[in-house]
């Protein structure tokens, strides 16, 4: 009986990883579509490819990790870390809400500080929600 113990656990991990992959595939396709739609239009933004890749891969990593940590308190910790990552990365990648496109003798500057502020507020709310969910989870299942 004791020899049988690791088997369901391994299967459980395998299933968990497969589920995480499946759950990550949908946002992966979404980011791919966004990339195809925006890469032509925003090709002139400096480092657009790099900035987009870091954001997309970062969020896909968090989606995978959160799916993998389903049913544990780490899920909520990862949600909080993801919100912090988004706040820091959006502020950095958008140059604090100001983007410049340079053509030959023509410069277009787009300033969207209010929109960036709204995104930061959303992520702060996400952190608050993550904390509440973690507290609720800890209160409900002390074993975890």
């Amino acid at each position, binding site marked *: 009986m004791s020899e049988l113990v690791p088997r369901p656990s391994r299967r459980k991990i395998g299933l968990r990883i497969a589920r995480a992959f499946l759950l990550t595939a949908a946002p992966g396709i979404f980011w791919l579509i966004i990339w195809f739609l925006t890469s032509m239009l925003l090709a002139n933004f400096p480092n657009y490819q790099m900035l987009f890749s870091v954001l997309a891969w970062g969020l896909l990593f968090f989606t995978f990790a959160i799916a993998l940590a389903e049913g544990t308190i780490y899920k909520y910790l990862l949600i909080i870390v993801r919100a912090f990552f988004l706040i820091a990365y959006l502020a950095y990648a958008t140059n604090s809400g100001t983007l410049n496109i340079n053509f030959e003798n023509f410069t277009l*500057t787009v*300033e*969207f500080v*209010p929109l960036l502020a709204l995104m930061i507020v959303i992520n702060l709310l996400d952190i608050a929600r993550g904390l509440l969910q973690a507290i609720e989870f800890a209160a409900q299942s002390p074993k975890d």
Partner: protein
Amino acid sequence: MTIKALGWIIALLWIITLILPISVVFSLMKLAEGKNMGIQEPIFSLSNGNLSLTIPFYINNTGFYDISEVSVKIKISKANTAITTLSKNLPNIPAGRMINASCNFSASLNEIFQRHSTLLTEDANLDVDAALHFRVAYAIAFNITQNFPTRWGAPFQNLTVYGVAYNNTANVFSFSISFNNHAFFPINEPLTIELYNSSGEKVSSALWSLDVPSGETFQELIEVKITDPSEMTRSGFIRLFFADLKIFEEEWALP
């Protein structure tokens, strides 16, 4: 319950955050299509020592959002030295409304040409930095800047004084002036003529009315009455002023 409410608020805010920039782009595309914007021919004028530029325009805001903080800024420089900076704030354009307005710039000739007096007599290559700023939906601001070179046409290009003569009986000093008005504006300010003798004393001064359209050549014989003939010498120098700016100084000698 609180967690659920927070979740809904977060979802709603993300939808707003994503829809806003997309709808702003569509709004600007709607505004840019057809004849929703237009600029009429600029009007240049020169009066009381001020150079004015009026650009009438219309905007029919067919977009979804109000356009605010509209401003235009023009900086003109020569060899990286600023000559003048003109800026104008324009009225807000509410969504679905059409506005007819004009962009008026005014600058004092003294201010412009004090440090660059050669611009009055010599054509030059200038650099123009033009910037248009506006905010859509009170949230997203756009700043479009363009720099381009432009050719400045001097209003007194090839300014020459020649044919100096003095009539002893009538006490009239005469000379001819010629120049080409290469400027984009007509010259209708008077020219101040100051005549000095060989000792550097002013022997006469006069105002000469000018009315030279843009692109025209001016050539005229000018006669100046000498009030005190005893101060008159056989040589000296002549100074010409335009809008209180010295544009010409040259020695003269009677034949």
